Structures are given as C-alpha cells and as structure tokens.
C-alpha cells in the first residue's frame, strides 16, 4: 500500500517535472519578453525616443479605422488559402510517393524533395526571380509573374511551396511510418481496395500529422514575411503586401512603434483563435491506439 501511494505521488509530480525544462526555456525566450513588450501597444512610442506616454486603447481603436490595413489582410488570407492547400496536398502526395518501396530511388528522391528546405528565403527569392523572368518568359512568352499585381501572390506561393514542402513531407512521412503494418495488412486481407485502405486506415491514423501540418502551415502562411520581402517587398503597388510586412513597417520603418505593436497583438489574437480552432478540429480526430 505504502509503496503504491508513493508511486502515484511520484507520477503526479512527474507530470510537471516532464514539462518543466522546456517551459523554463520557453518562458525565458518567449513569454517574458512578450509580457515585457505588451505595454508598448498602449503608448504613443515612436520607436526611438527614450520616453513615451500612455494613451489607453487609442491604438487599438485606430486599428479598426485603418483603411490601409484592409489590403494586407486580404493578401494574407489569399496567401494562407493558396499556401495551405498547396502545401498539404503536395507534402502528403510526395510523402506517399516516397513511401512506395522503389528501392534506392525513394531514398534519393526523399533527399531531393528535402533539399530546397536548406535554401534561405532570400536565395529562393532570387532563384525564382530568375525563373519567372528568364525561363518562364521564354517557355510561355509571358512577363514575369512577380511584376503582375494579379499573379504575384500565386507566384510567391509557388516559390514558398518549393522552399517549405519538404518540412511537411517529412512530418507526413513519419506519420505514415507510425501506422502499424498489421492494420494495413488486416485491411488488405479483408479485401479493402487501395483507396479504401487510404481512407479508412491511413487517413485517420495520420490525424496527428494533419493537426500539425495544416495548423502550422496555415498560420505560417498567414504570417508570410521573409520570402515576400526578398521577392517583391510587397509590390508591385502593394499587391503582395502582407500583414506581417505592414506590422513590420509600422514597428520599424514608420515612427509608430506603439501602433505597430497594437496591430501585431490584435493580429496575433486573430491567429490564435484560428489556429486553436483548426488544431482542435484535427486533435478531435486523433485516435489513440
């Protein structure tokens, strides 16, 4: 009896002990700086003066009146829709392809699919600028898509997909590898077709991979920043300016640090809501073995 109680106690505390090291590091580099910076959103600080005044919720009210914020918001949503769909379809597709046993070929191809992830966003932007400008113009007789207000967002999404699909491919792949072979075999014996096996066995068991990949690729596309900045700086004519670029401009280029912080916080709240909604949708579908 005594031993048993001790063990349960140990288990109770261990729940927190497991969490502790990560939480400490996380608090130090993210939570504490975040709480330290929040008050800026309630000030009129311009980013360089040594003092500032508190202005209450004025910045937050201005956010809702800001006409210039509408286009970046719409652009970010366009990025998110195109990017999330593209990213997950391609990543899952390539993961399934690579998972087929074709011997050495799969191994090599897996490395090749992952190689673009090693490219920095600035380098990706430059290479694809060449491709759009020189290669596409010769192949299809069109002007660079990056200089076309209607096509610039799909064009940046394509270069982003090339650059980041390998990440989700890897996550999907490890999800697929995690599926017990017996389940697939059992379904085969029961006479399920390839498609049925995919829908009834593979897909449900991939739920953890989906919750990670869909949630994170969606929110990271909503936060799209570096690639667009290197490729077009939000142009032409603001046609690819995203929320993150707009926030960055307010924080650092325009003398409106307080206001920039306020937009950033509201935008973060929006992302948190969306992210949690999507994540809990997929988390519910996760099955425990």
């Amino acid at each position, binding site marked *: 009896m005594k031993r048993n109680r001790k*063990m349960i106690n140990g*288990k109770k505390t*261990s*729940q927190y*002990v*497991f*969490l502790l*090291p*990560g*939480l400490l*590091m*996380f*608090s130090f*580099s*993210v939570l*504490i*700086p*975040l709480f*330290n*910076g929040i008050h800026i959103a309630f000030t009129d600080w311009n980013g360089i003066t040594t003092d500032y005044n508190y202005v209450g919720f004025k910045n937050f009210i201005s956010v809702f009146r800001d006409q210039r914020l509408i286009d970046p918001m719409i652009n970010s949503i366009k990025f998110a829709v195109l990017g999330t769909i593209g990213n997950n379809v391609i990543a899952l597709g390539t993961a399934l392809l690579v998972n087929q046993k074709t011997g050495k070929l*799969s191994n090599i191809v897996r*490395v*090749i*699919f992952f190689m673009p992830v*090693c*490219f*920095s966003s*600035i*380098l*990706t932007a430059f*290479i694809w600028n*060449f*491709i759009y400008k*020189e*290669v596409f113009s010769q192949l299809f007789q069109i002007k660079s898509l990056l200089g076309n207000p209607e096509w610039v967002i799909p064009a940046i999404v394509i270069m982003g997909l*090339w650059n980041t699909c390998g990440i989700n491919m*890897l*996550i999907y*792949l*490890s*999800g697929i*590898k*995690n599926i017990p*072979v017996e389940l697939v075999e059992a379904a085969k014996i029961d006479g399920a077709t390839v498609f049925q096996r995919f829908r009834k066995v593979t897909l449900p068991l991939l739920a*953890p991979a989906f919750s*990670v990949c869909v949630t*994170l690729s969606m*929110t990271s596309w909503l*936060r799209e*920043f570096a690639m667009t900045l290197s490729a077009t700086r939000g142009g032409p004519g603001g046609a690819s300016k995203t929320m993150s670029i707009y926030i960055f401009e307010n924080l*650092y280029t325009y003398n409106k640090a307080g206001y920039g912080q306020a937009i*950033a916080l509201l*935008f*973060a709240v929006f992302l*948190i809501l969306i*992210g*949690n909604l999507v*994540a809990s949708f997929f988390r519910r579908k*996760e099955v425990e*073995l």
Partner: protein
Amino acid sequence: MIRYRRYSKRQLRKLPVVIGLLLVTAVFLFPIYLAVITSFKTPLEIADSIMALPKTLNIGNYVEGMKKSNFARSLLNSVIVTFPSVAMIVLFSAMGGYTIARNGKNNRFLKFMDKVYLSSLMIPFQIIMIAVYKIFKELNLLNSLAGMIIMLTGYSIAYATFLFVGFVKSVPVDMEEAALIDGCGPYRAFFIIVFPLLKPIAATVAALHVMWLWNDFNIAVILLQKDEIRTLTVKQYYFFGEHVSDYGMAFAASIICMIPVLIFFVAMQRYLVEGISSGAVKT
C-alpha cells in the same frame, strides 16, 4: 533476360510511381540546378544568360566566398549554436509533449499549456525583438553563443512540443502501464520505453530543427553582431548588397552554407525511414 521477365510484372506495376517520382523530382531539382550553375559564373556570364552553362568551371566564386565569409570560424559558430540547441529541443519537447499527451485530458494546466504553446507560434518575432534584446543585454548574453543557444532552444520548444503531443498519442499506452505496474518509475518508463518508440518523430524534429536553426537569420542578426561570432547563414546575407549584388558569389556562399546540413540530413536518413517495428507495437 529470365530475371527481367521474372520481375517485369512487379516492375510494371511500379512504373507509374517511378514516372511520377521522376517528374516531381525534376520540378524540385530545376531551381537547384540553376543555383548551382549560377554559382560558377562570372557576373558578365550571369548578365548574358541565366540558362547557359558556365564557359569554364570557375571556382573563384567559391574561393572568394569562403574567404569573405571567414568560412572556418563561421562554420564553427554555426555548429556550436545548432547542435546543442537541437539536442535540448528534442529532449525537452519530447518530455513536455509526452506529459501533455498522456495527462492533458485530466490536467487542466497541461491542457492549457498545449494551447499556450500553439498560440505562441502565432506571435511574430518582431513583437518580442526589442524586449529580447534588452533582457539579453542586461544579462550579458549578447554576442555570446551560449545566449544564442538559450534563445534558439526556447524559441523552438513550442513547435517541437506541439509536434510531439500528436505523435505520443499513437504510441500505445499498454507497455508503459505494464512497466509502471511492475514498479518502474515514471522517468525510467519514459526514457527506457517511450522515448525509443518516439525515435522516428524525434529524428524528424531533429532534422527540421537542424535545418531551421542552421538557417536562422532573424534571431542571429539581433543577438550576434560581432563579426567573429556570426554564423554562416548570417554571413551569406552580406553578399546581397544595397544597389549591387554579385549573384555568383552570393549563390556560391549560400551553397557552401547548406552543404553541412545536407550531409547531416543524409546521415539521418536511416532513422527517418525506420518506422516503429511492428512487433513492438501490438502485444
């Protein structure tokens, strides 16, 4: 001939897969090919044509690029910063993800932390940048590789933990429960039974983070400002200038920068392929 006939039916069935693979591969490879041939060209050759092959195998870009980026020192900095951080990230977030996945249902705080971790991923780095700089300055952690390791680890914990939470669920509970009933402590149970089962996802987390931390620019550019302490990735950005860029050298420097991570990834392959062996899963 006989062997060919024996395998032909199976091979035929795989033909669509192989063709699909080769097609997608070509799409993925083409930009890399462009980057590589560009890195061997002189500025004038690049100006003439992007597609053409370089006239000579001009390795000057690589030599100059390595010299200008102070290659040996920067490489060492990158290695020092990346690998200890990744080791910590994998270990800490596996532990955190494990406890959230197993106990989150009954423990509101843990469930709440899952949400906190997810939410923190939505926060743009720029919001916390000035505060991070101030804190690191107070604590004398600026321009220090140790400070950089702490920051990178802390900043990546949320993502990695979130990843582990989902995957721990697909590891069957039976074995650790059996072990716990047999009197094995919770820590021993985790390290001896659960962690080995998490190997594929741990390998994925490691591979991803090696890539990200190696390529990190946002954090490094703020925390590491002295030339001798900068990482290889930060260095490559200096080849893209304000009004003038020497593309050839910039591309060469970037390609050198990614070779070490590529080698790491290929070496990791073995762990990424290997799933949970069937015997270990079901009793």
